[in-house]
């Protein structure tokens, strides 16, 4: 099926952001995913987050691999450049793009097959390099486009659509990301916009590798009884550890909280993240504790969600590589090419 353009007309009184844009300006082509697909809700959350952040869409690039999730960048931000690469290799393309121009924001959208199987190596190394991007995995535990095979994030207790058993333990991508050194790690649920949108806003304002594992049920192949990635299972077993408020630069904080129940973190662009601890013992700046917390919930058959780990101290790729402040793609002959005298002295040194 070819792509479907969305009609452009809209209500004249739609709310506008500080750029004078409406939410419609952040939308993309009509989705061709199954009706009710969790991924469409994630696309909607990205649209909402970018609208609320007043981001100019053309200063953002969308990167993806292959699979249902990787198709979604067509369905949001049509004024952004997009790059649908090859299966499991989006991290390297995003890394290269980032090296060429660090001034754009990058959203990578991937799936559990794309990230936890074929692209596991590239994912690990993008995290390790602290590529400045938001990396979202739309995690449904199944291969949708090839009609319902188990993926590596499918839990061992989870049954297939026809009752098939899964012999292997799942890979927890959020735990993986923390262990590999991602500086921002969250987990959300496609059905919980209240939680997801502020988390995306905070991630887009963060400098460094921001990872969000979004449980995004596949209504066609993995939403049955016995699946641990179904809407119903997730609603019953989700355990939100933190609630995230995103506070824009210069925005006042009005709500009052009991002492010790919130943590405020200032991000690189001077916006703030206010984490309301729903579990009083939780410390999102401690990676070992975060991992322990995730595993504790996993043992109970629950899924920990919220902003799980945040480190604003680490540097991102460009700083680690000691690159100039201007984007490399803005440099021309004058900045890049040594003159003939330099070449002559090189010739001389080779005689």
């Amino acid at each position, binding site marked *: 099926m070819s792509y479907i353009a969305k009609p452009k007309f809209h209500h004249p009184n739609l709310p506008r952001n500080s750029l004078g844009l409406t939410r419609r300006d952040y939308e993309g082509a009509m989705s061709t995913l199954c009706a009710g697909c969790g991924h469409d809700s994630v696309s909607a959350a990205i649209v909402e987050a970018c609208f609320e952040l007043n981001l100019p869409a053309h200063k953002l690039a969308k990167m993806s691999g292959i699979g249902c999730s990787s198709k979604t960048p067509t369905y949001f931000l049509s004024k952004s450049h997009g790059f649908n690469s090859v299966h499991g290799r989006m991290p390297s393309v995003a890394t290269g793009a980032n090296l060429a121009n660090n001034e754009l924001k990058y959203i990578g959208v991937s799936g559990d097959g794309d990230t936890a199987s074929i692209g596991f190596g590239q994912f690990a190394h993008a995290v390790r390099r602290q590529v400045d991007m938001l990396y979202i995995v739309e995690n449904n535990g199944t291969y949708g486009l090839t009609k319902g095979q188990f993926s590596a994030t499918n839990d061992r207790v989870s049954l297939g659509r026809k009752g098939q058993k899964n012999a292997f333990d799942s890979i927890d991508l959020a735990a993986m990301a923390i262990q590999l050194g991602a500086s921002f790690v969250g987990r959300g649920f496609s059905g919980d916009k209240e939680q997801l949108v502020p988390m995306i806003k905070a991630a887009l304002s963060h400098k460094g590798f921001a990872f969000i594992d979004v449980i995004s049920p596949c209504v066609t192949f993995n939403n049955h009884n016995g699946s641990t990635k179904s809407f119903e299972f997730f609603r019953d077993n989700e355990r939100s550890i933190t609630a995230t408020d995103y506070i824009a630069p210069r925005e006042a904080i009005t709500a009052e909280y009991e002492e010790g129940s919130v943590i405020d973190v200032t991000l690189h662009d001077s916006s703030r993240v206010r984490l309301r601890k729903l579990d009083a013992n939780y410390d999102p700046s401690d990676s070992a504790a975060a991992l322990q917390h995730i595993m504790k919930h996993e043992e109970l058959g629950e899924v920990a969600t919220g902003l799980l780990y945040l480190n604003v101290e680490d540097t991102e790729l460009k700083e680690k590589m000691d*690159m100039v402040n201007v984007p490399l793609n803005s440099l021309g002959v004058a900045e890049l090419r040594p003159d003939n005298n330099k070449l002559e002295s090189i010739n001389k040194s080779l005689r």
Partner: protein
Amino acid sequence: MIVNDFVIKFANVNGSGSASANALFAKAIFRMGVPVAPKNIFPSNIQGLPTWFECRVNGNGYLGRRDGIDIMVAMNPQSWDEDIKAILPGGYLLYDSTFIREIERDDIKTIGVPLTQLCNERFTIPRERQLFKNVAYVGALTGLLDMDFDIIKGMISEQFRGKDKLIAPNIDALELGRNYALKYFDCPLDIRVESSDAVGDQILIDGNAAAGLGCVFAGATVAAWYPITPSTSVAEAFENYCHKLRIDEETGKKKFAIVQAEDELAAIGMVIGANWNGARAFTATSGPGISLMSEFLGLAYFAEVPAVLFNIQRGGPSTGMPTRTQQSDITACAYASHGDTKHILIFPSDPTECFDFAIEAFDLAERLQTPVIIMSDLDLGMNEWTTKPFKLDETRGFDRGKVLNAEQLDEVEQFGRYLDVDGDGIPYRTYPGTHPEKGAFFTRGTSHNEYAGYTEDGSVNVRVMERLVHKFNTAKELVPGPVFGQDTQGSTMGLLYFGTTAISVPEAMEMLDERDIKIDTMRIRAFPFSKEVEDFIDSHEKVFLVEQNRDAQLRALLVNECEIEPAKIVPVLNYDGSPITAKCIVDLISEALGKNTEQVGSNTVAAE
């Protein structure tokens, strides 16, 4: 007496510190103005296995590899028997006479220098005793071959500038060997080096260093690579030259980014991501890396993203002979990836062309919005060559190709990423972040229409695929054209060759000429083949094609792409991992013509 025309070979143990002494010897000859071609013949090993350094010295500038050794410096007991066998009758054996050796040939002349004994007496530190043995045999050779001793002493001072305390013991070691030779042998030998002006303004450099330098001058800012022999030194040279030439004076920060990727897949992915985003980016790899990069090359071809690759070819298939040379990745590169794909290949034949073609490749990749693969090989990449100095045309800018900026986008009614506006098959592209409203598109490996939208409409796909062929035909006019050799001979026979074979062809032609075999020559420098290549084949009855692979891969490409009668092109092949010799070319052509190969002479020494 033989002056400035011999092959000397050094047989050493890998990791024993011989490489720098051997390089010193070769450079000293070069400094005397005599053309020289040093070659490392090394194992895939860090320490302990046999390694050789072969050096052809030729006043006429015939610097292709030549079989038969005139002087063997045999320093490795492991390969002793084999090394003695390789010496030509009447040739010389220089060896460490501290140890008693059985020498079973009486048709060679032996020069025993007690190198171990001399160094043990002079030096106290064990490592010094080992290292200076190498310097001492170079010293002995300066006496035996009548080399300019001031030149080599000057080079030692140059090399250790800043570490001055190393100068005296090195010169000491040189003199140790030299004085022994002068005292005990009739110096100089009947083979010797005489100062000359045959080198002229040429330089001595390896192809990989030249390629790395070329990338700096080409404006490359991103390099992503994964270590693999024999390509590693391209990335390393780029890094070294960037540190000298690309540090921002004000901030001290880097105007470049070099990533040692986790594998070749990631390396090419980064290159494609960076090029897509408007930075000039490249990778360097070898055959196995090309296999891994193939899926991404298909994406770059179809989505029309520029990319520059250096393939420093080695012996295949599979892991093959990682430290030997071949030209055996032509098919794999020309048609890399599944589906109908074709890629631009460029064949440099010396380090100067590695530099020039690096600059050319970035222009071509961006002009044509497609991958360009520079097909070097181990012989060119990792050995130092006597080659023309680098030149830069300062009036020439970077050709960034058809890229629309914000103002140009404002003028465009409707931007279509894959629209053939100019009729040359090359569409217009935009970099991300250019314009708030116009010019954004979705780069994809899925079939797409002229507006980059996904399509499963077969007729649209055919249209796009045909435009890609049209673009590839446009490339024929833009890639480096062929170079004619003796096209004036008006022979009915032609000879085609490419890449490092070039160094052996003039000598082969002279040898054939002596046999009264006249052949016109043409050096192919790129794929797709320009019309001149087709014309050359058309205008000759029989065409020989010299290749360093088993399957005559370039021949297959010519037959396939130019619809040439296969029988017309006679393959001349060498694929034993050693660079092709003039004699091999002559023998195979003579054999094909039914002439007695024995009459053609065993080497140029005999011919003189």
